[in-house]
């Protein structure tokens, strides 16, 4: 089974702190994604990566950056956390253009971040 692991389930940070959210997948997937989930808004794409060292902005990239130095690891960085970044953050991966149907995402269990 595909396993997507997010390193922290719950984090509490202060405004202005730098925050790292780590995600690792063990199925050699090409694509990795970071979403945030807020009540009534569904999942919104922050950034995605389709290859090592490659990254693309999603719909709400402001205030975030990402790093993908290795294929299995995709990190989300909040350079200076703000209260409006309090949310559930979901990492996902997908196989790529070949193999599994396009678009099937495998999600981690989420990291709930509270910024005070």
């Amino acid at each position, binding site marked *: 089974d595909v396993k997507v692991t997010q390193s922290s389930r719950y984090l509490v940070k202060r405004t202005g702190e730098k925050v790292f959210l780590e995600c690792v997948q063990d199925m050699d997937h090409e694509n990795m994604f970071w979403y945030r989930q807020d009540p009534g808004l569904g999942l*919104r794409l922050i950034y995605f990566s389709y290859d090592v060292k490659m990254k693309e902005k999603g719909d709400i990239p402001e205030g975030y950056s990402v790093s993908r130095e290795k294929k299995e690891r995709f990190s989300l960085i909040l350079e200076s956390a703000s209260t409006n970044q309090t949310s559930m953050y979901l990492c996902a991966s997908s196989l790529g253009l070949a193999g599994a149907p*396009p*678009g099937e995402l495998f999600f981690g*269990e989420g990291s709930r971040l509270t910024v005070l």
Partner: protein
Amino acid sequence: GENVGLHLPTLSVQEGDNSIINCAYSNSASDYFIWYKQESGKGPQFIIDIRSNMDKRQGQRVTVLLNKTVKHLSLQIAATQPGDSAVYFCAENIGTGGFKTIFGAGTRLFVKA
């Protein structure tokens, strides 16, 4: 802007009844649609998908219907069980490779025993 939306935010059904969860989409370029289930404390999980060249697809106890004329997607769950209680998201893909998946706001399904 284009988005995927849902008709109802919550749905309550009796155990054993069939459930129908609806979704409206507005992006005519979408060619692939997915339903995800999210249980409390977990990430979303894939349930079933359908491509735009189909209008119906069946899985185990679930059926997805696609009506491209009115841009409507539905998920039918047969003989709903307590374990089906979750939030259900419809999602649409624009383009190949899963790069651009747009999610709806979600419908919470309550199953009454």
